[in-house]
């Protein structure tokens, strides 16, 4: 039992990301409201970003901005050696900047489409739209 708790303590960040992802996935599939689905889609994307950021975390390290680094003063001289263990891994952060921007782009497009759909059918509920389509 204590083994289980220690593994949960080790992995709780990963755990939360799975929970959030499942919430988002459920919302996309099961919710009938189009905007709710978009909210779910965003939660899903953010969960994946949380996963990547968790990969990037490193114990005993600081944020990835090199200290005492001011342009020309350091480069070339190579006076102090920079140790990779002192700084958090920047690569996942870079990837996630991209992912966040992609998420907001998708959000804009999805909302624009939702507005088009609303203009046409006067409702955002998927089942009501399908009922309207079936009538014709």
């Amino acid at each position, binding site marked *: 039992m204590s083994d289980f708790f220690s593994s949960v303590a080790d992995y709780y960040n990963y755990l939360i990301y799975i929970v959030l992802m499942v919430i988002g996935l459920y919302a996309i599939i099961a919710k009938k409201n189009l905007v709710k689905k978009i909210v779910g889609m965003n939660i899903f994307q953010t969960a994946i970003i949380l996963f990547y950021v968790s990969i990037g975390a490193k114990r005993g390290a600081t944020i990835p901005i090199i200290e005492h680094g001011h342009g020309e003063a350091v480069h070339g001289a190579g006076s102090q050696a920079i140790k990779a263990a002192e700084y958090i891994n920047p690569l996942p952060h870079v990837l996630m900047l991209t992912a966040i921007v992609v998420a907001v782009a998708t959000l804009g*497009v999805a909302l624009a489409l939702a507005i088009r759909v609303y203009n046409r059918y006067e409702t955002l509920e998927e089942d009501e739209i399908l009922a309207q389509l079936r009538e014709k």
Partner: protein
Amino acid sequence: MRTLGILVAALTCALLFYAMGDFPPWADPGSAAHTHVSPRYIEKTMEETSVPNAVTAVLADYRGFDTMFETTVIFAAGVVCFFILRLPKKEGPIFRRYRHTLTGMTIRVKCTRKIPPVLEEFEMIDNLWAPHDLIIKTSCRILVPFLQLFGLYVIAHGHHSPGGGFQGGVILGASMILLAISHDLRTALARMGEKVHALLCPIGVLIYAGTGALCLVLGRDFLDYGALAGILHVDPVTARSHGILIVEIGVGLAVMATMIWIYNNISSRGEYDEGL
């Protein structure tokens, strides 16, 4: 649908839990993710690009190609929103309602597409007209220049502190959006028209891709900013640093313009007339 949703969610959950057992422990400095590729970024960024913020260096230089396409994604989103929502300009006269603030009388004016000059004692009324709150209006107006200043700072200071083109661009865009929310869309459009932000958006990406193409023309690989050393009269490492700054400015412009573009299209349903 609900059972399907639960089923899919449970399946995914089970699959991911199954894999979690083999993860390296959280935040373990010895795991593969921290030892294979990334140490070079941290150790060499000062030496190779002279940018202390490793994230900016990786974003705009080591993986600059990704970032170019990321900016393109934003640009594409702007164009798509315009393409889907923007309604063609209506022909013929439009009727606008005005209220005389002194007497409270409402008049209907027949006018063209162009918005007539604003007179002191007349107030335009929309279908969704609501009286604007003076406190909100004034405080937002005071806030806007500071926001823009901060946005510029964030773009320019991305080398040394968190920030860069994206964050700064979004803040700049948000300042215009704030103006559009606190006043109305017309006020914001009078400051920055549709054509301006629709053109700024590709121009921003063009600055990025053009820098890359310039490097290609100068005989190096695409986006190899070291090639700019000859033009900028600096050594190749500093040229990389300057190249990153140029690129970040492009990103900032594109992101700012796109955020405004998307907001204007969504909030006015493509009519570009009445805002929120």
